[in-house]
């Protein structure tokens, strides 16, 4: 079909995300500058300036207001977008919980960056991980293409009437945000076929007036929270369903809640999230070529947590090495903890070795990935595992 072919371009994941927001026909954007997110909203501003996009850009005075304004736009019944990083995400914290409890289908891109102090503008995932319990669906991406595709999918997931929860698409600062990759930018018609116009539910409707986002005592409060938990659990199915439908239209499939890579017969498996998966994939290929039984699991959904999928994938594995780009101080990396909880009760669970690395933008080179997998291969069953900092 002439004029409908997707365009291929070398762009950063930030630019890819901006294209996704444009293609999603977002009508209100509210954002505040912060490195390494800023080029997303700069690109959106240029789309609006050039007439390629028809939207209101609210230039707010803070991230707290950015997320609030997006929530306001949803209350008025229109699709909204924001993006942020690090301190900005921290500053949004109150509104993150507010918007999920209010059941607003917000979508944001978080360009993962370390959190001060110590001050650093470089990448890790501490910012996103610290928002784990705010009720947002958190999906991590590996490439610029996946970031674009997942922002489009996020609108379908969030706005699904079975879900009505906000979705945060995480991409890694600099590795994704500032690195150009070849990206296929879908055409508008195909996106329109995939993503229908927003059909709002929780709104300020003068023709059907409600007090929305109100409060309640014990029993009522608990009932709303239970509904929220049920919706978050239901999101596991919807994320898979939407991913499958996306693949049918666009031909790209990312594997649902997790992507298992070469885990058949693996003795040791490395688990991680985000852009470092790319390096890990190469290391697994190399070690497999050497005859070593290793595999990789890319955790795509952090919330809802794919506990059942991980139990199944790891039921025959001897040891799992977890690379966290975050730390829950006084314990260990968050993914390691969640994985251990997911494996609890398995008849013959794998040992879990926690590694913390890639903090503050530190590179995690292939040798380090190999080291983690070698450690996992040689671990004795039931060996204690406390988090090891691998950047030092």
């Amino acid at each position: 079909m002439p004029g409908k072919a997707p365009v291929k371009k070398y762009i950063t994941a930030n630019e890819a995300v901006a294209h996704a927001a444009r293609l999603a026909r977002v009508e209100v954007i509210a954002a505040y500058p912060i490195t390494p997110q800023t080029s997303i909203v700069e690109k959106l501003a240029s789309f609006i300036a050039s007439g390629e996009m028809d939207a209101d850009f609210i230039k707010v005075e803070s991230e707290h207001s950015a997320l609030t304004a997006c929530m306001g736009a949803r209350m008025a019944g229109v699709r909204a977008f924001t993006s942020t990083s690090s301190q900005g995400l921290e500053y949004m914290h109150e509104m993150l919980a507010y918007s999920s409890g209010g059941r607003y289908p917000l979508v944001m891109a978080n360009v993962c960056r370390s959190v001060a102090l110590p001050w650093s503008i470089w990448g890790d995932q501490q910012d996103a991980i610290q928002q784990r319990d705010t009720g947002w669906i958190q999906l991590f991406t590996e490439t610029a293409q996946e970031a674009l595709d997942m922002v489009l999918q996020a609108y379908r997931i969030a706005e699904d009437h079975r879900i009505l929860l906000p979705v945060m698409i995480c991409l890694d600062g600099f590795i994704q945000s500032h690195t150009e990759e070849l990206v296929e930018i879908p055409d508008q018609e195909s996106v329109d076929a995939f993503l229908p116009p927003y059909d709002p539910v929780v709104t300020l409707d003068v023709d059907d007036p409600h007090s929305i986002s109100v409060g309640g005592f014990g029993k009522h409060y608990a009932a709303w929270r239970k509904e929220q938990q049920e919706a978050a659990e239901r999101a596991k199915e919807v994320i898979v369903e939407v991913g499958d439908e996306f693949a049918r239209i666009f031909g790209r499939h990312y594997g649902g809640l997790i992507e298992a890579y070469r885990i058949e017969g693996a003795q040791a498996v490395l688990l991680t999230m985000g852009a470092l998966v790319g390096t890990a994939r190469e290391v697994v290929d190399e070690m497999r070529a050497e005859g070593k039984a290793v595999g990789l699991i890319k955790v795509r959904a952090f919330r809802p947590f794919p506990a059942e999928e991980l139990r199944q994938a790891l039921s025959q594995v001897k040891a799992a090495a977890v690379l966290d780009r975050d730390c829950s101080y006084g314990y260990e990396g968050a993914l390691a903890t969640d994985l251990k909880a997911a494996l609890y009760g398995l008849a013959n669970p794998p040992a879990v070795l926690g590694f913390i690395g890639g903090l503050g933008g530190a590179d995690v080179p292939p040798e380090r990935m190999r080291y983690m997998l070698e450690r996992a291969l040689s671990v004795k069953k039931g060996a204690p595992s406390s988090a090891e900092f691998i950047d030092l």
Partner: protein
Amino acid sequence: MKLRNVSKEELYRCSYGCAGCASVLAVRLTLKVLGRNSVFVVPANCISTVSCYYPQAPFFVPMTVMAFAATGAALCGISAGFKRRGREDIHVVGFSGDGGTADIGIQSLSGAIDSGYKFIYICYDNEAYMNTGIQRSGLTPYGATTSTTPSPCFENRPKKDMMRIVAAHDIPYAATACTSYPLDYMQKVEKASKVNGPTYIHVLAPCPTGWGFPPERTIEIGRMAVESGMWQLMEFEGGEFRITHTPRRRRPVAEYFEAQARFRHLRLEEIEAIQREIDASR
């Protein structure tokens, strides 16, 4: 505007507000002007506390509770959304208390005015954090005791001048009012509703519980605030301030103070000093 022509429809009923609450009255009066084609954003304050507990919903128009610091930004987002949908006819109203306006919400309010979106931000001012138990706010007047400025250490800073703060943003329309002057207030709400941009109304709302006076005196106390010069009714429009009501009689500020428990500790010389300041500012 005449009393006989004011809408008889009651669109705010059966809140859990205290008997004689002027803030509740302010909501009621606002809705008499704006009617059903309006939506309300109410951050943490007395009005959300007395209006938002399921299943009681005293607002007969759409409303949302909002985070304390977020009123201005919510108004922008909603206003932008309605604009996108071609529904700029809907009045988008913020109803925030003094702390939510002058303290925790001042940044968001500033950003919202700066954005240029159309909304009416109403600050109902009962001069302290009443809903949490009468703590001092940036709008507590000099000389008042609160639970965080207990006697003898009464509030020793002047009330923030919100009108000059919003005026410094070149806001198209702003006004002060008092619930004891309902027609003046309602006229200002009506005027604000016709402005295609951000507007701000600061309405003094006497609080029997927090100020320490019997509930039947709510209207009288507000009148005394204006007659004593502790509060002025004015407008800011086209870059100019204008007094909209000059009291026929000027009342000594001592009478206003005597009527309320929160000023009882003031000594004669302190009252005289305040009186001199009021006289000098007229």
